């Protein structure tokens, strides 16, 4: 099964040999190549290159093309405030402060030529052509309630109390926008349309049923008619809305760390809806070590009695500065679960001291390139790192020494500990860390080696 087929089978609620893995790399994708959030969300070429890096390093079953809930709002006249390391925020809501909530004319619904949509559709098509056979592509649209709040501001919470009919009418309009966006994205080759509506966690399940059940049910039915899968993303403490969300009949939902995923899955299983989540964004992905990330993944997998209907994913859009090696660790834990389990066991087993003698780095006869990997045979990022080292070895021949240490072997774990290697893959030259996680290009590596010759 290709990674894409694993995801499709999961969304069809079938059993799979492996768990589907969908890293939500939005602005983080840009960080891999050093692009700012603004660059990667505005410049199609930079976005495409960044997404290709994600695809190469994280071997995803599915990946979003753009993670920005402000695309539709921008088309509809919301002023955005841009940021270097986060998606933009809506700085001005065009309908805020007006006494009455008036639904805009349907003629204002964004077309394929509005705002950033042409750029997005183009990148979607390029991704489809390049990796579409093996990776399921996610088209993310702004959910009707969040779009309503973008356009109307906080007044929407007052309207829900004052003028229920006006809110229903307005949400119909926002749903119509979502339906159109779903059409554009499905046509551009997206396999899954994810309706992202973080604000859902801010309302009670009663209000959900009163205002949201109908529009969301219609939206998911529409997406089904387009012949693609659907997902319902929330964030925040959406616990009490999980059940009403399932009742709108999406193929899957996705939750963050505020939800007890193990308990939630028992509920979603009753509705036969797949559930995705919920690697903690800050404590684990951003601030945790590579081992923390692998351990979190294994623990989560172990806690789930039934892995059918489960997709491993971050709680939400990954923070910009998530270290690449942390995501590589998660990838490896999903793809090579048992080997990672062994690694972690060996890593924590302290009693068995293995004596390691490190080379005398100050008195080497020739440059020594040491590549520390999770396992270059199975971990994509490690394969590339090892590939670069092998290339260099070809260039320099006997003038340098090169060696790989796989973390799957106990002695190598002891070596990593002794040398203080924490992130894999990484490359050391003469005992000094030179490249970590990101694979150096040929010139950069050769230059680094020449420096010590």
């Amino acid at each position, binding site marked *: 099964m290709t990674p894409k087929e694993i995801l499709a089978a999961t969304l069809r609620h079938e059993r799979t040999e492996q768990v589907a893995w969908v890293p939500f790399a939005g602005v983080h994708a840009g960080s891999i190549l050093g692009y700012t959030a603004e660059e990667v969300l505005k410049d199609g070429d930079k976005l495409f290159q960044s997404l290709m890096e994600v695809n190469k390093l994280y071997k995803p079953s599915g990946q979003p093309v753009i993670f920005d*809930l*402000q695309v539709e709002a921008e088309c509809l006249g919301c002023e955005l*405030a841009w*940021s270097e390391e*986060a*998606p*933009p*925020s*809506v*700085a001005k809501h065009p309908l805020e402060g007006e006494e009455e909530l008036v639904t805009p004319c349907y003629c204002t619904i964004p077309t394929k030529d509005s705002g950033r949509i042409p750029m997005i559709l183009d990148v979607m098509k390029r991704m489809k052509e390049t990796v579409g056979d093996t990776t399921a592509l996610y088209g993310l649209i702004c959910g009707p309630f*969040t779009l309503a709040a973008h356009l109307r*501001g*906080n007044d929407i*919470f*007052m309207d*829900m*109390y*004052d003028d229920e009919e006006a809110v229903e009418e307005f949400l119909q309009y926002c749903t119509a926008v979502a339906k159109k966006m779903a059409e554009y994205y499905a046509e551009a080759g997206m396999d899954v349309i994810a309706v992202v509506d*973080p*604000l859902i*966690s*801010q*309302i*009670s399940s*009663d*209000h959900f049923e009163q205002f949201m059940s109908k529009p969301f049910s219609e939206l998911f039915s529409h997406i089904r008619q387009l012949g693609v899968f659907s997902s319902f993303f929330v*964030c*925040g*403490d959406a*616990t*009490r809305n999980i*059940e009403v969300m399932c009742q709108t009949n999406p193929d899957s939902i996705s939750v*963050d*760390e*505020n939800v*007890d995923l193990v*308990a*939630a899955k*028992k*509920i979603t299983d009753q509705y036969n809806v797949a559930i995705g989540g919920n690697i*903690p*964004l*800050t404590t684990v992905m*951003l*601030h945790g070590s590579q081992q923390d990330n692998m351990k979190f993944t294994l623990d989560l997998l172990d806690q789930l009695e039934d892995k059918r209907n489960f997709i491993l994913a971050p*709680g*939400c*859009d990954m*923070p910009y500065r998530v270290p690449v090696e942390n995501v590589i660790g998660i990838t490896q834990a999903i793809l090579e679960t048992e080997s990672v389990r062994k690694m972690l066991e060996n890593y924590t087993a302290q009693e068995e001291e293995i004596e390691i003698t490190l080379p005398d780095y100050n008195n080497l006869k020739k440059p020594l390139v040491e590549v520390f990997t999770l396992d270059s045979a199975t971990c994509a990022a490690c394969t590339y790192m090892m590939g670069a080292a092998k290339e260099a070895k070809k260039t320099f021949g006997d003038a340098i020494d090169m060696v790989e240490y796989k973390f799957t072997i106990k002695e190598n774990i002891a070596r990593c500990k002794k040398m203080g290697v924490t992130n894999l893959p990484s490359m050391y030259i003469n005992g000094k860390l030179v490249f970590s996680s990101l694979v150096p290009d040929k010139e950069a590596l050769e230059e680094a080696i020449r420096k010590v010759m």
Partner: protein
Amino acid sequence: MSKLYLITGFLGAGKTTFLKRMLTLFSGNSIHVIVNEFGKVGVDGELLKKVGAEMEEITNGSIFCSCRLDQFEESLQRSLQRNPDVILVEASGLSDPTNIKRILESNKEFATIEFMGTICLVDAVSFPKVYETARVVKKQLNVSDQILLNKIDKVSEEEKESIKKILKKQCPLVPIHETVFGQVEPSWILSMELVEKNSMAEEPVHADITLRKFVLHIQEDTSLETLRYIWQMIMEDVYRMKGFIHIQNKWYLIDCAGNTFHAVECEGSNEFPNQLVVLSGYGLPATMAIKKAAKWYPEAILNWER
């Protein structure tokens, strides 16, 4: 030490206007301001300069995200490098301030911060509405140490009293002050005291016929983690959950109120072991919340009764 004040309140409650008052109040001190929202009327540079304050805006991406607290942490770290006398934090109107308090309590690097309290702005005009529609409003009230009932010139005496009734039910120990344009008496702020969140008000002397009591019977295998999740599921619709329980071979005294789950290990007790008493009151859909929790955690909640 830097004194930190946290300002909360739903969108449009008047936080930014109040923040300006606070700036003037602390004029003469070095002040650092952290704002987690785009206000319609921002704090202008002129005023900041006049009182010698520095300001930092956190642009929180999609603004709703409650998991991205790293940005707040970083901003606070930067602020501490300057060692200001006063730090004023204006939390985003949609954010659950419980998380901010948790960060302050759990991080050693924030040990030089003296937490002075949370001031919650309540817009008298919109409160009855957003209290019904936006869940975060209750969470903001639950962590507050002082409530400023703002914009009282825009409502009738009757309306004001009915709001105060709701507020007193929701957080009986928190002092409520009435304001217009966020104008406060300096003494309200300067002599503010922290409200102990785990000790609820004594039971009322008069019978309160709206008080509802439930008993949850807890299974012995249940983990504390699961109990915390159960509390999270019901906390918005109840006042308190309390009892002695013996789970996973340990005794705990559970006492939760507001947004806080509180459990301490204790000596064994024979008094109704593994029964948690839950109190709720008028206008709160507690039965539904408890039913839902029992459905989510059938292994933990053996049964429940009224």
